[in-house]
């Protein structure tokens, strides 16, 4: 800093002197980014890459590998990466995906809640086991059947990364089909 002050005429603003470096103006004119600008751009990109914070999203879930790879990948085209460093553009692109993910979570949670309630009602209509042991095991089976929809939902939420929306939908649809409370069929049928 002292060198910068000694080498040129008096600085226009001494307060800003601590934040600048001799030659910054020349570098800016040549289009060279300072390390601080690089850091700021990277931070903005990382901030906008994060999923929206809401109560239904798991904050401790890992980021999808492809998103990290994309952010860390060098620009092979040699072109400017300003669009990726623009928080506004990234937020605009991420908004529909976040909204879709939230809508999927709410819809699937409602479906799986309905399945759980269905199984609670369904096990009232079933009975099994002629002796104590088999009756006990049958009741444990009923408990497992009631627990199956919430377990399936939580497993999909925990084990499928949030970025892989299609995979989540596929597993949730498979679970909903497999875990239909069929013992309610006589009640539903006329």
């Amino acid at each position: 800093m002292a060198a910068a002050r000694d080498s040129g005429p008096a600085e226009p603003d001494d307060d800003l002197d601590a934040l600048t470096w001799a030659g910054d103006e020349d570098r800016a004119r040549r289009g060279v980014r300072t390390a601080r600008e690089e850091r700021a751009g990277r931070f903005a990109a990382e901030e906008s890459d994060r999923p929206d914070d809401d109560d239904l999203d798991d904050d401790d879930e890992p980021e999808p590998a492809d998103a990290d790879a994309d952010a860390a990948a060098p620009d092979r085209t040699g072109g400017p990466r300003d669009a990726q460093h623009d928080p506004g553009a990234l937020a605009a692109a991420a908004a529909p995906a976040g909204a879709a993910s939230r809508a999927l979570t709410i819809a699937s949670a409602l479906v799986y809640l309905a399945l759980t309630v269905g199984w609670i009602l369904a096990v009232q209509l079933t009975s099994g086991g002629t002796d104590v042991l088999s009756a006990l095991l049958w009741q444990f089976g009923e408990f497992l059947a009631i627990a199956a929809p919430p377990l399936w939902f939580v497993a999909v939420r925990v084990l499928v990364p949030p970025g892989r929306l299609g995979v989540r939908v596929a597993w949730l649809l498979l679970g909903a089909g497999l875990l239909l409370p069929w013992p309610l069929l006589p009640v539903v049928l006329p």
Partner: protein
Amino acid sequence: MTRARVGALVAALLFAVGYGWILFGAISNLVALPELYRALGIPETTPWALLVAGVALPPVLYAGALLLGRRRATVDRVILLAVGLAAASATAISGVAIAAVLLR
């Protein structure tokens, strides 16, 4: 053998008992139900597809849980095995209910 591998193996063996019990019930149904229907004079209504699916599903779900749990933490493997066991139990009860509806 690492502690994680031992934990995964113990979990797989413990859950195998549960899956095995459901499979045993399904095999019992596959053997006994056709006999019962024949004795009742309605052998043509034997729900073969349900009986075969009931036998096939527990091992399929168990194998699926083990396959999906590969290269995962022990906790994840336990979650997958528990989900598979719960799903096997739900489908077994569903099979009994559907068979009863088909008899009406």
